[in-house]
């Protein structure tokens, strides 16, 4: 089970375009990235409460997206977390 937390957020500058997603500037490396809206939602959720597992996030997300089951969203959540992890926005630690 991997527990996810947001990385040291002061390292990033985020411009949120809502449904269009966001762009993120990594101050240390100078890199700029686009992040899709779902991944941004995940990041927001982690900023409110962390560490959390992907399952716990999926459960909450399914509730927010009426009509979707946890199974439906779990793939999207995994992909979103992978994107965030690749950009250094979240860290996962094995438990």
């Amino acid at each position, binding site marked *: 089970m991997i527990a996810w937390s947001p990385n040291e957020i002061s390292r990033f500058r985020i411009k949120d*375009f809502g449904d269009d997603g966001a762009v993120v500037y990594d101050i240390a490396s*100078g890199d*700029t990235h*686009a992040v899709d809206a779902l991944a941004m939602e995940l990041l927001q959720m982690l900023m409110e409460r962390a560490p959390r597992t992907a399952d716990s996030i999926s459960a909450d997300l399914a509730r927010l997206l009426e009509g979707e089951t946890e199974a439906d969203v779990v793939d999207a959540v995994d992909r979103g977390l992978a994107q965030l992890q690749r950009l250094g926005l979240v860290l996962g630690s094995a438990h």
Partner: protein
Amino acid sequence: MKVGDLSPDALRRQVGEGNLLIDLAPFVARLRCDVDSAVRNLASMYAAFSVLPSDHFADFHIQVMREPGLRRWYRPQARFFFDGQPSFTPLPSDQAFAMIEWGLNWCVAAHAHQYLIIHAAVIERDGRAALLPAPPGSGKSTLCAALVHRGWRLLSDELALIDMDTGQVCGMARPVNLKNESIDVLRAFAPEAVLTPPVPDTLKGTVSLMRPPLASVQRRREPAMPAWIVLPRYTAGSPPRLVAHNRARTSLLIAEQSFNYDIQGLRGFDALCAVLDRCECLQFTYGDLDDAVRAFDALAATH
């Protein structure tokens, strides 16, 4: 005193000696060139631009000179120098004026980091500017050339200079680069446009430069506030379509199309976000210039 006020002989002499300083607000270029065709094109394209006294500060010292030796006679070539340093490989000397233009663009893009510089065309109407970023071959220059003959002011066809403090964009209103078919297309669309004799076989194909409209040159010191980012895509036969484009992706695209976004660091990111905040992000597909004019007229009429 304008370039157009100099007699052909006087111009040739002055630029041959390297004493021609042209006001390319916000820059000044000091130019030296010994290629006659280039000097003639210069006279035509920059007639309305001011000449400055030779004891004036110049931002860029540029030389385009004929290659010495056998190359003076056999398939003559010319080479671009930046402050006396040879830059780029020599090209056939009939491309000398194009080299001046490309070279000036390079000078600005490589050195003017007081601006966030985007590779885009910029046009303005009623104080609002449209940025048209696009990779080469997307028809941006043709579209730009057409629109500035139908009510839009030309700021630039290549370099959007963004003031990171005020968010305003400025341009030099320099000649517009046209190639291949767009030369004839533009001639038909705007018969009043003044073009340099087309030069074939450049690396970009056949190239011609279009003189900037006089009103654009006269107002080139006026910046404008960006209001639209329009990604043009020309497809022959396509009906006009203007649709919203994802803002996050537009941001990334602008950053990628910027010459110095990376150098600017966080300041550049903040400036980029500010531009995005002010602009509607649109993708424009079209196949006909008259359609394009109408579409942009409609844009200008909004709020």
